[in-house]
């Protein structure tokens, strides 16, 4: 049984798949988006007694529906209304990736930003102040991560669990989304 659905969104090559695999392990299934030839990956994981379904959205640079992938990602966020969007962003190309983040935030969906590939950003000598960034984005959680080395993912799991917990408490009657 699925208690909550969360969506993974991000630019192509931002490391979304790595995060997806790390979260769901072997519990994933691959299909197609209804009526589309684009691959749809879903998976599950349990945390603190919650069953959480993860949907991996196609990698896109924007949500402006210029392409099939963008259309799919946008429709899912706006119409299927996942409880939470996990926005995986490439820290080494922050400016390009944050454009999508702004569009996701504009939909009004609760969002967590995972700043992935912090090692690459470090190699370029970039220092990113995640605290400041969180403030700049209105206080949403910003996690720094190196998904390929499994860094920052525990923090992500914890934040998802906290969120789900809070959501459960806010809506004691229901809980299924």
């Amino acid at each position, binding site marked *: 049984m699925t208690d909550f659905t969360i969506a993974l969104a991000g630019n192509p090559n931002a490391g979304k798949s790595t995060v997806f695999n790390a979260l769901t392990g072997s519990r994933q299934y691959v299909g197609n988006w209804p009526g589309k030839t684009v691959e749809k990956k879903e998976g599950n994981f349990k945390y603190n007694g919650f069953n959480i379904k993860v949907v991996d959205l196609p990698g896109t*640079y*924007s949500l402006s529906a*210029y392409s099939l992938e963008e259309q799919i990602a946008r429709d899912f966020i706006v119409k299927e209304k996942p409880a939470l969007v996990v926005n995986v962003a490439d820290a080494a*190309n*922050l*400016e*390009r990736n944050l*454009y999508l983040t702004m569009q996701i935030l504009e939909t009004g969906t609760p969002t967590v930003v995972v700043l992935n590939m912090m090692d690459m950003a470090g190699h370029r000598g970039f220092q990113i102040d995640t605290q400041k960034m969180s403030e700049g984005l209105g206080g949403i959680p910003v996690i720094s991560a190196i998904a390929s080395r499994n860094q920052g993912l525990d923090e992500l799991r914890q934040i998802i669990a906290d969120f789900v917990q809070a959501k459960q408490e806010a809506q004691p009657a229901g809980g299924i989304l």
Partner: protein
Amino acid sequence: MLQQILLEIEKAQGPLDLNNLARKLGIERSALEGMIQFWVRKGRLKDSELETELNCDTSDSTACGGSCPGPQNCSFVMTMPRTYSLASYDSE
């Protein structure tokens, strides 16, 4: 921000390199590419890669030693850098 890209290209005396433009405007190179794609979609910049592909004529097979005369398939064609030019200069 977006407008500045077009202005800088217009101002440039000669070809302008993408890296230089990114540095000049203080925009990350990959973000600049995204903005350029925005203008390409709006039809204000012309992307050389899209242009030549559209024009490749595969009907004539005599040219260039029997392979497609189009710029993509002739074995003598070189991989040329991608260019973007202002669409407003497209007269005639």
